[in-house]
């Protein structure tokens, strides 16, 4: 029963994701998040951090693989609380709406 439930969860999540994509909500949320991050200066902060990283690395060719593990955790951490809250609120609203379908 637990295993099935876990599968159910996975299935549920898959279903939710599918719903998100189908309604276009995912794209909306993505754009919203991007705009908010630029507004709050997250992008500039991260860019400055990137510059430091790259200068430190002093590699001839910096690859994406190099950058990602450096930047992603910092990026996640730098997101301001207000943006996070707002986005979560939106997601919850979406779930509440579409859970009844």
């Amino acid at each position, binding site marked *: 029963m637990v295993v099935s439930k876990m599968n159910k969860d996975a*299935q549920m999540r898959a279903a939710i994701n599918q719903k998100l994509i189908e309604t276009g909500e995912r794209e909306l*949320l993505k754009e919203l998040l*991007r705009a908010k991050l630029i507004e709050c200066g997250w992008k500039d902060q991260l860019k400055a951090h990137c510059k430091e990283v790259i200068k430190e690395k002093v590699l001839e060719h*910096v690859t*994406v693989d190099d950058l990602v593990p450096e*930047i*992603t955790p910092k*990026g996640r951490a730098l997101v301001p609380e207000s943006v996070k809250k707002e986005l979560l609120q939106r997601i*919850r609203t979406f*779930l509440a709406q579409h859970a009844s379908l």
Partner: protein
Amino acid sequence: MMQQQCRRDGGRAEARPPTLPSAPGSFVSPHPTVGRQLLKLVPTVQRGPGLWALFLNPLPCCRPLCYEQSERRLHKSLQMKMEEMSLSGLDNSKLEAIAQEIYADLVEDSCLGFCFEVHRAVKCGYFFLDDTDPDSMKDFEIVDQPGLDIFGQVFNQWKSKECVCPNCSRSIAASRFAPHLEKCLGMGRNSSRIANRRIANSNNMNKSESDQEDNDDINDNDWSYGSEKKAKKRKSDKNPNSPRRSKSLKHKNGELSNSDPFKYNNSTGISYETLGPEELRSLLTTQCGVISEHTKKMCTRSLRCPQHTDEQRRAVRIYFLGPSAVLPEVESSLDNDSFDMTDSQALISRLQWDGSSDLSPSDSGSSKTSENQGWGLGTNSSESRKTKKKKSHLSLVGTASGLGSNKKKKPKPPAPPTPSIYDDIN
């Protein structure tokens, strides 16, 4: 879809049994709606039974075999129900967890997108372009001191500065330097206008007695020094430096053949009533002199002015100077020569006769009559001499007018009427 499958189950949207744990006794329902739904289950047996309901209300058929079947059925229905209520039936924590997951996914997407952008910028070489070296950063730092602007400049530093004019070597205030230079060097629009006006005014002053080149209708009654005052008044009426002034003058007959090209004449012509005989004569030798019907003034253009025909000019001269008067220029190969000699004598005789040549400045009609009388007296003596030639002159005039009409166009409507007046006189 799970949910769609569940829908086929009679649309039991309302009654959704909660996800029951394996032990029916340990039922926990934190979700408020779930509790309500559970209560709904109690009275109705037919609707979504659920394990709970099973224990409350046994199935109609209580045989052991039926029970197993029913249990299996129950399981299936339960499963379906569970799938059906997968989203809403979840407890809050699950929902929240899902939400968090979604959010994390989105953020990660953004970060990854950002990484791609940075990587591309590094590869294309424009990532570090907006960096400036520290020296320039120091040089162009924003200044935030009182009395200075952000560039570090003092506010009205140039207000009180004085410049030395290279032309007149005077020191002029900076804000007045440009207009001063314009006047001082004589270049630029305003300076030429001012200069021309000055010349025109000085001309008016000098020549108010003789060739009144720039008199306007204000000089009608005063043919003396009063013209000067009125010239000044006229100047103040309009903006002296406006371009409109010059434009309006272009179409007037104010052009003089001997005038400076930059000179703007302010008059259409000359009022013949204010001229003495001497002036008239000299005027008519140099200028067109045809009297315009509108303004009763003589045209001050050249003798070859295109607006008036020779015939008109001749008529005017005859009117003023007697029937033997002739145009200074010889246009057609008519025997004008014969007239010249006699004409000059007649002119002299006429001019010497002062009498009522002091033309009254009142109506042109009355003045004409007085003129006729005046001139008539003068001509009486020479008329007998001139009768023959007068007639031939008339015929000449007639032919000339014919020729004139053929050769030249009459651009203005007043052109035709004017000969008629003089015909009467003649």
